[in-house]
């Protein structure tokens, strides 16, 4: 694990697991874990506010103390510890709408560096949704409205012109 791992996304991964594994008996775990996951999704999609972060922390602490069993009691741990040690990452997602580890796709924005681009057209050819427009004479551009941030263009570019 290094700086290419997004801590918010990591917490979301663990929460996905606990939401799946919750038996549904007690309220905090049954509904609470689902709500925590929803807030994390909001953060990784760049739609959360600072209040959401506060709500997430309050909810996490309640679930920790009020759940019946170990699953619910420990479900909030990944959230609380990532908030404790990597709060800057949460804030980057919320305030700057950026994922420092560049993992949260909704916060990525891909563009073609015209200086590096050789206008070969491989990116446009490999784009699954036809988001890259242009020709070999004038060069290429990514239409952000169509782009699904899958990274196929980036992967196929031989000149590292897309970032």
């Amino acid at each position: 694990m290094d700086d290419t791992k997004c801590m918010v996304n990591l917490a979301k991964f663990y929460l996905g697991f606990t939401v799946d594994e919750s038996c549904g008996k007690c309220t905090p775990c049954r509904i609470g874990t689902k709500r925590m996951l929803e807030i994390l999704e909001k953060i990784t999609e760049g739609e959360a506010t600072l209040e959401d972060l506060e709500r997430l922390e309050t909810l996490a602490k309640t679930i920790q103390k009020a759940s019946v069993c170990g699953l619910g009691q420990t479900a909030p741990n990944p959230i609380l510890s990532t908030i404790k040690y990597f709060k800057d990452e949460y804030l980057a997602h919320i305030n700057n709408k950026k994922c420092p580890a560049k993992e949260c796709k909704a916060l990525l924005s891909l563009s073609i560096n015209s200086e590096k681009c050789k206008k070969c057209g491989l990116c446009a050819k490999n784009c699954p949704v036809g988001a890259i427009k242009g020709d070999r004479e004038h060069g290429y551009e990514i239409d952000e409205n169509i782009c699904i941030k899958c990274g196929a263009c980036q992967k196929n570019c031989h000149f590292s012109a897309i970032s």
Partner: protein
Amino acid sequence: MSDLVKLNIDGIDVEVPKGTTVLQAAKQINIDIPTLCYLKEINAIGDCRICIVEIEGRRGFVASCIQQVEEGMKVHTNTKNVVEARKIILDLILSNHNRDCLTCVRNGNCELQTLAMKFNVKGIEFEGAKTEHKIDDLSPSIVRDFSKCILCRRCVSTCKNVQKIGAIDCAQRGFESCISTVGNKSLNNVNCTFCGQCITACPVGALREKDSTDIVWEKLKDEDTFVVVQTAPAVRAALGEEFGMKIGTNVAGKMVTALKKLGFDKVFDTNTGADLTIMEEANEFVERFKNGGTLPMITSCSPGWVRFIEMNYPELLDHLSTCKSPHQMFGSILKSYYAEKEKIDPKKMFVVSVMPCVAKKFERQREEMKNGELDDVDAVITTRELARMIKQANIEFTQLEDSSFDDPMGEATGAGAIFGVTGGVMEAALRTAYETITGKELKEIDFESVRGKKGIKKATIKIGDADVKVAVAHGLSNARKIMDEIKEGKADYQFVEIMACPGGCIMGGGQPIRSSKERSEYDIRKLRADCLYDIDEKSTIRKSHESPVMKKLYKEYLEKPGSHKAHELLHTSYHKREKYDL
């Protein structure tokens, strides 16, 4: 004494017996801890987490409804942390609840609503996805609205542990958890008996009776229809509760006035139907007893019970009395004898029964409950539905003067009144059977041995030279015990009374719903039962066969109990029923 445990709750020392829960201990010193999934003697599973408290030395919160007291325990029930956590938990429940409160049948009598008010909920903090759910309204008795279910499992415990039917249980897991039936089928197609105990256990509007008030309103407005209403014994002992009156208040007089104000052409008393049932049932018993018929004979007034035996013990259906239940008998008589006498076209007659029961809605539409083409009873509404109609008509129920039931069917006996309580049918039948068999007057007419809340009551009654062994069971788990005894040939009773609901009709699935708190504080069963016993005691005539109405009815129309005519109108048959239609 070593059996006592000392603890401290909110700074108050209290000593309670070992095994007491923190919730109960707090109650003893008047500390009220809010609850939601807890239901006294039925459901204590600590799953909603509303009743959480702090205990010194414990890391997390503890559910007080299941935590037993320990020596030296220091409990805090009302700290800032606890209250805030409860508020968040309540918020979570509300976030996945269909909050159409204004149009909910439980508006004003909802435990979740009460909690929301108590915690001053002003908005939902944790709004999010909701579980998608449907409405199951296929059964003639019970409607399930999944979107309102809060998964407290009170219905499940009632069905599984009290009634021992297990028609519903929790299915799926996590956020998708829901209360379901076998194969997620409608209640109509599984082993549900329609007793409706789940409805009275539900804290919210997830379970309700199938509403029949619309058709009744419609008929009341139709001038061509002669709308007759009859009210079951147990209704008068509980209807007042819907208007804030004390539990166990006899509101028969006010109820009759209200029904007349609603526009019913005639208001009759099902207690008279009960008297008629006793005439037939006591006669049937005497016949079976004397002539070696199938014994023990089992009563058939409780439609939930009848559905239960049809599903679970079809091989023992011969034991069931062939008598229709009182309101069906009465409906049948109204559309024959009464219609002829009053020169009313029975086709233009609409008979409404007000019942404490939701299974009666199912019974009404049984194929067997007809006389020719005509249904004996055309609509069944519960005590709760009647209360709603009265409220809708803007009638100030508590201010009403008393009036009497309409003649000539008005004079019911005390024996008819106690039909609504466990042991009552047996007691009423014994009063008549005793005098029929011996020809002597019964002096000691209170059969105390068949009264009370014990699940199965057994007694031996000396009738002439013979000892008649009787058993009374209420609640379907107790019914099952008796049926197993009969099946195994271990039962030596001659007469058995069974009612599907614990406590009898007074605690029926159609009766006013009391909150968990009220169920903890009052002995509702006893208060309502006392009301009916009081009516019996104050009645001038306390034996069905002495009723002038009965004498007249048999003289003018039915000839004698068990006659051909009586069989045609007042008796029925049963059939095996599949438990699952999958």
